[in-house]
């Protein structure tokens, strides 16, 4: 029988079920990211359709201040790179390197959020709030949703660092690090489109 050998192999393989479970979880998370893509896609669609409806309020080019946004962009780009370095350290088996690079990533992420919050606060003080116009509703919701994603990622990253210090590098923590770094790269990709479509096309 053609499949007999394969079958025997999978039976022998049985006790190592944990590892397969982690592969399933990676796939599940990837699919979750696809759903998140669609979530952001819908927010982008709404923003693009409504971005001209300023209802007498400030327009994109009047409101956005690029230096802060450019800083945010390079910070997030760098953090995507450092989260990759964390994965590299993990694959080399270096727990200290792994936690260290995750910490660098988290600090960069936190400064990104800090800059974004101060940008929002400044806008609100200038009278540009979520209820000023459809354009600003779309802007705050799209950019804010990305910010909430980054913040959730930060809490999650700290939780993973704690688990790493407790359990070390094993198949479960390894998968968790792979997942968070995938998530982080994904948020970087979303930001590239926020940067391009909201900010760059807004001020050009």
């Amino acid at each position, binding site marked *: 029988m053609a499949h007999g050998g394969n079958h025997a192999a999978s039976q022998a393989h049985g006790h190592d079920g944990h590892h397969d479970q982690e592969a399933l979880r990676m796939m*599940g998370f990837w699919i979750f990211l696809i759903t998140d893509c669609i979530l952001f896609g*819908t927010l982008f669609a709404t923003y693009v359709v409504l971005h001209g*409806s300023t209802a007498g309020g400030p327009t994109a080019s009047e409101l956005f201040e690029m230096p802060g946004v450019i800083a945010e962009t390079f910070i997030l780009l760098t953090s995507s790179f450092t989260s990759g370095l964390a994965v590299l350290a993990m694959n080399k088996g270096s727990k200290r390197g792994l936690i260290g690079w995750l910490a660098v990533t988290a600090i960069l992420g936190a400064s990104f959020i800090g800059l974004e919050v101060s940008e929002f606060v400044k806008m609100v003080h200038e009278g540009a709030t*979520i209820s000023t*116009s*459809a354009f600003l*509703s779309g802007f705050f919701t799209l950019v804010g949703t990305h910010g909430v994603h980054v913040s959730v990622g930060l809490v999650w990253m700290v*939780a993973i660092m704690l688990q790493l210090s407790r359990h070390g590098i094993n198949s479960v923590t390894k998968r968790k690090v792979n997942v968070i770094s995938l998530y982080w790269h994904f948020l970087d990709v979303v930001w590239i489109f926020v940067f391009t479509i909201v900010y760059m096309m807004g001020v050009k």
Partner: protein
Amino acid sequence: MKINSLSDFFVTGDPLIYGADVAIGLTMVAVVLVLTLFKRWGWLWREWLTTVDHKRIGIMYVIASLLMLFRGGMDALLMRTQLAMPDMEFLKPDHYNSIFTTHGVIMILFMAMPLMFGLFNLVVPLQIGARDVAFPFLNSLSFWLFFMGAMLFNLSFVIGGSPDAGWLSYPPLSERMFSPGVGQDFYIWGIQISGIGSLMTGINFIVTILKMRAPGMKLMKMPMFSWSVLSSCLTIILAFPILTVTLALLFIDRYFGAHFFTLDGGGNPMMYINLIWMWGHPEVYIVILPAFGIFSEVVATFSRKKLFGYKSMVFALMSISLFSFFTWAHHFFTMGSGADVNAFFALTTMLIAIPTGVKVFNWLFTMFRGKITFESPMLWTMGFIPCFVVGGMTGVLLSVAPADFQFHNSYFLIAHFHQVLIGGVAFGYFSGLYYWWPKVFGFKLNEKIGKYAFWFWNIGFYVCFMPQYVLGLMGMTRRVSTYGWDSGWWEWNFVSTIGGFLMGIGFLFQVWQILHSIKFMERVSGDPWNGRTLEWSIPSPAPAYNFATIPQVQERDDWWATKERKAQGVPEQPRAPLEPIHMPKNSGIPIIMSAFWFMAGFGLVFDWLWIAIPGLIGVAGSMLAHSFNYNTDYYIPVDEIESTEAAAGRVV
């Protein structure tokens, strides 16, 4: 909304609602009493509320959805009663508005969806030779999120007031300016919370089906129901995020005063209609695709033939799940998007009818020259085919954009979508329930009472909805609670109401059928229908671990082929020796986390942050508690497997 007194909080003023209050109160007291008297609280918690077993989660889905069917059905009968006596004010217009709203939401989101998820859970792992779904913890969480979302939505009936802006809640009516009450917020949070659960179920079953099939079961050897689940789940993961965003934007409008869909501040209500149908249209395919899978299984089993056109069926299912994303604008041809847009979406709508037609021919050719027997599952399938064909045809009529300007929002449309949703989805899920019931519970449902139920439903359906096509052509629009005698609509409405009650009687027969079959239970073997697929190769009900040894699949209808080989005297392959089975531990976190979601949702509905914030903190805390828990699984030892299998009369 500001709550100034208890009468703002509790819904008052209508005797129907007081009656419901009393009934709900008495039922809850009775449940608590029974559980306490028989000391069943611990059992309920350990065996059911915290279970991660897909079979038990499936049963809970089915029970919850049948309760919701009752509530949605009551809504329907109340509406039909009002329309049979238009002058009597049996329902006041504003009460009628809430009832057609909750009827729609409940039937689609809290009846059809969970019944579908119930069938996914009960069948898919067994059918593909797996021991559970890919993520059992997540599966339990999905169920409890659905349950809490449904409860939150239904709570609006007695507390705060029901939503009343239609099942899709179009702005500007659903905005705070025109719906200042909390009903609309109950709508948003009830759907939002259960929607997260639906999304996770979609991910769960995609990974389960793609990665956990028994060795040898290539994708093209997979049973058709599992294919239909895959196609439905793909549509879920691609469509539900759109719903999440759309409702979130509506909430942001209502709560933070944003201007996405408002009439002022540059908002555009039409954007909501565009977005909600990007989810709404795929949603109807999400619920119908698994029904197609069920019919394929049932037709093959009861015709004793393999399914005709397996590959074309797979192609039809998968192409529908993709194409369902390109037709949404046909729900608002009259919105004024221009001739180009309307022409494009009319064309895609007509095209999607083609793969659907292919399937009907496949089922007919499967039956051709088969040795057909007409047990309940097959009966519902036979009821489905003519009903769905007519419903599909009227759908194609509606897809003709210029003609739609006449049909739009008339009873013609109402009759059309009820014909595909009842004749297709409901009949399909009933067929599936009857078919897999013995696998789940170990006994069949009484055939004779089942036949009464079938005929009442089937005849009731036509009596109810055929007159509505006529009413639509006569100009009766949906969502009206009264009409003048000079319109000439009364006779048709009266007949339609009779049909509605006939279906209600059909439902009562089903309840009686279940109770009767439990009382006079006759145990059946693992394979009571002479089935074709793997789920029939194990005992009924299936043991906790499903398969003592994972089957080695060789053919498309593998269990049928195994039985044929046995009949021909081909010696069986030696079974692999038993090994300890790796199982997930039960967890209380899903129900607790979902209860926190309920709290958060309830707090946000009333803008009571002192409830909402602790609720959200609880959600985050439960997630972290789960993340830090590394003790999540255990092994079933070999001797326990042996004794379980022996008790089911099987040698291993």
